[in-house]
């Protein structure tokens, strides 16, 4: 999968203010270290920094893994492996390429999709997803209601942007991002022409990207 996980010089604190469309951090207290500071400490071999990063993001990363592999015990195993990889590969994190969370998510997603394929559960997951999406076209956000989308919280803001997409675009992005499916695989799984899948992905991703950028400017 053509993804970049960085590689190169150690973290440079002067490069930490990157323009990224994700609108806000997770609400750090004044005494808490930023993600960039924690990554810097991890690069210096401070295990306590990894512990803090785990407390901050293990829930999000596990949710991502579960979205891919649908098995709690396996998700825990993968989560542990991913944090070990964060520890051992922190030297390859480059602040100029984005935020630590983006780097960790890229790493976790790749690991989870690799794990899914290694288990040869890919076809079964595809069948299950096909069934799920037939039953619930907006399965990605099925548990989100308007009442839950209240301003101020990063998660709610991001969901609001995603929620604004037509269900078919959400479904295409769900299959591509969380299941690692190619356009052809999505076309086959959803009985949709390849060109339509491409258009749905392009439009959906563009809307999310631009929506997040706009929200960032508003905050």
């Amino acid at each position, binding site marked *: 999968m053509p993804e970049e996980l960085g590689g190169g010089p150690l973290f440079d604190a002067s490069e930490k203010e*990157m323009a990224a469309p994700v609108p806000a951090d997770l609400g750090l207290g004044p005494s808490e270290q930023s993600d960039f500071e924690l990554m810097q400490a991890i690069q210096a*071999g401070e295990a306590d920094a990894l512990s803090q990063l785990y*407390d901050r993001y*293990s829930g*999000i990363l596990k949710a991502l893994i579960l979205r891919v592999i649908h098995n709690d015990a396996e998700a825990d195993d993968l989560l542990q492996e991913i944090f070990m990889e964060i520890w051992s590969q922190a030297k390859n994190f480059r602040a100029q390429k984005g*935020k630590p969370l*983006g780097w960790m998510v890229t790493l976790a997603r790749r690991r989870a999709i690799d794990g899914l394929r290694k288990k040869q559960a890919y076809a079964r997951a595809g069948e299950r997803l096909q069934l799920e999406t037939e039953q619930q076209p907006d399965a990605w956000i099925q548990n989100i209601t308007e009442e839950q989308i209240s301003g101020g919280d990063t998660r709610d803001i991001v969901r609001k942007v995603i929620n604004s997409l037509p269900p078919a675009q959400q479904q295409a992005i769900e299959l591509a991002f969380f299941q690692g499916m190619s356009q052809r695989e999505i076309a086959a799984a959803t009985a949709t022409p390849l060109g339509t899948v491409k258009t749905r992905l392009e439009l959906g991703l563009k809307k999310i990207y631009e929506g*997040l950028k706009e929200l960032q400017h508003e905050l």
Partner: protein
Amino acid sequence: MSFEEFQNRSRLYVIGALEPEELEEFEQARKEFGQKGEDFIGECYSLHEAFALSLQPAKSSTALKDRLMKMVREKQQP
């Protein structure tokens, strides 16, 4: 390839959704757009962050963290 098309493909690229034939064209355009293209691709990775943040965090056991930190500290020892 126009820069607008390159932007569309970049967003597909970062989630691994380009088909092989598109990937070849994309890599060629990437070389042509140089740093401007690299900067845009870098920004697109923030989509990963957004998708993860859209999920409800899941709980994991305390034992898992204890095991992880034990392994890390063992690795630290000479």
